[in-house]
């Protein structure tokens, strides 16, 4: 039973890792990465590592997406102000 759970979560993690690489647009990738972060936290819980799961949740669900999205925003804003310049 535990094994089945581990297998399910592992496959989901592998699938979302593939998806995170396949999304070429950084904003969409950030969405998948935040999903991957939460799934990894679930995997760590299943592997009986709640401490690691907590830190993965803390980092993966809000912090990393925030960093990536702020970078995306900065770069988009740059692009826009350049277009306005002509």
């Amino acid at each position, binding site marked *: 039973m535990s094994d089945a759970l581990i297998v399910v979560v592992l496959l989901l993690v592998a699938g979302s890792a593939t998806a995170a690489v396949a999304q070429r647009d950084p904003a969409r990738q950030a969405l998948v*990465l935040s999903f991957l972060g939460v799934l990894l936290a679930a*995997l760590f819980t299943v592997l009986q590592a709640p401490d690691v799961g907590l830190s993965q949740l803390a980092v993966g669900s809000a912090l990393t997406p925030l960093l990536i999205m702020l970078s995306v925003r900065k770069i988009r804003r740059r692009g826009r102000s350049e277009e306005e310049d002509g």
Partner: protein
Amino acid sequence: MHVLPYPVAAYIFLTGCYGLATSRNLIHAVGCLAVCQSATYVLLLAVGYRDGGTAPVFSDMKPGSRPLVDPVVQALTLTDVVVGATVTALLLALVLQIAKRHGTVDPDELRELRG
């Protein structure tokens, strides 16, 4: 007894490498590096797992009452998670500066350092 988690970790690592090598956007590349790193988490924790074990945290159970998984790999992974987050932040800061100085984040268009 099965070995599934290990090849999954290897697969995640190689997938991340593939994304890194073929990336057309440096922010995406940094994301792929984070994927590569999650392979190390999976591998480390898989190595430390024990069938039927539980976390060696004794706030809600008596020591010795159940089999325990390896705490050392968990501490290592914890360190690794922190390293991953900080490296991501630092690399993103560099990407922002590249966007400013080069006007692009496509590695194919960065043509300054050659030969």
